[in-house]
């Protein structure tokens, strides 16, 4: 994630589309990755990304530089992604297909490349791991393991005390470990390392 200088933020707050595009380029990957991690649905992640940046555009005039722009955008992203996930849960419960996902899972000529196969396996494993977690636990895992934020940043973004971050992340990791041990990973963890027991010593 790239930091943005104050002048660019002020220009974007005044309605300069070019300056706003700079902000988008710096944060879009982060926003989309977090949204995808929480919602696990590309359409929902795209919708969340769109909503986040429209909110950022409208809210920039009120941005007081009290925290970093990144932290502020993360906070908007986490709230938006969780809300979209919750509002879409009923819709998904009726079995609406994610056509992008179906399309990606159909083997095509690209799959002849080893790298693509590995990437596809890795993405399926990630999806399987994240699907076993609650949205709050998913969010913790995404912020810590993918975005590599420290506990203090996570506390600021999530608006919870530092100790709550620690305990929530610990529970999220425990849930993730249970999933990995039960089902193994297509990529990363050898099948021989799967445990029949669930991490109980």
């Amino acid at each position, binding site marked *: 994630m790239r930091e943005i200088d104050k002048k660019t933020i002020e220009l974007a707050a005044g309605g300069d589309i070019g300056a706003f595009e700079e902000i988008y380029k710096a944060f879009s990957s982060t926003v989309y990755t977090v949204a995808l991690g929480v919602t696990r649905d590309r359409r929902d992640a*795209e919708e969340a990304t769109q909503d986040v940046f429209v909110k950022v555009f409208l809210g920039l005039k009120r941005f007081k530089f009290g925290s970093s722009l990144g932290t502020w955008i993360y906070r908007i992203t986490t709230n938006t992604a969780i809300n979209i996930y919750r509002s879409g849960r009923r819709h998904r419960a009726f079995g609406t297909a994610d056509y992008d996902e179906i399309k990606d899972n159909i083997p095509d000529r690209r799959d002849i490349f080893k790298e693509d196969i590995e990437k596809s396996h890795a993405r399926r494993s990630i999806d399987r791991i994240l699907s076993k977690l609650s949205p709050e636990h998913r969010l913790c895992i995404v912020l810590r393991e993918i975005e590599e934020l420290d506990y203090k940043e996570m506390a600021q973004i999530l608006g919870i005390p530092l100790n709550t971050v620690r305990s929530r992340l610990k529970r999220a990791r425990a849930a993730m470990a249970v999933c*990995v*041990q039960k089902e193994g990973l297509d990529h990363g963890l050898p099948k021989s390392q799967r445990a029949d027991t669930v991490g109980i010593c």
Partner: protein
Amino acid sequence: MDCQRAKGLILSEYADGILRGHALEELESHMRSCPSCRRLAEGLTAAGELLRSAARADAPQAVWDRIRAEISRLSIKKGFSKTLLERLRYGLYSLRPVVVATAAVAVLLFVLATARLVSYMNHSPALSARENIIDLVSLSSGSESGEYDIGTSAETFFL
């Protein structure tokens, strides 16, 4: 070290990579003798590496196009854009599909109109009237042989 404590460390300081010194040595010693705790640590490490290597994704270009169209609309509505030129530019951008469709229809209409004009020029009423007069003149001065002469015989008739 018992498994309860080992498991707690694996899920926090060890997974964060901040466990050092005696505590780390003690945990590693425990994991060597406890396959279950070892598998827990290996599973978490593998999952962490997998997430860091493959979970990052870029938003499709269409997302930015939609955001841009939306904020252009909002800019005009909220008076962000001060100049007429900016308003026109943002307006055109958000109406891009309509502008393209209108331009396509305009080109089509121009081609059809041109084709019709050319056809009209070739068969215009003025030309037809001229041809009719010539025919009439020729008929009036028709030769006995039944052939119509529209040259000097017409002039002779009027003179």
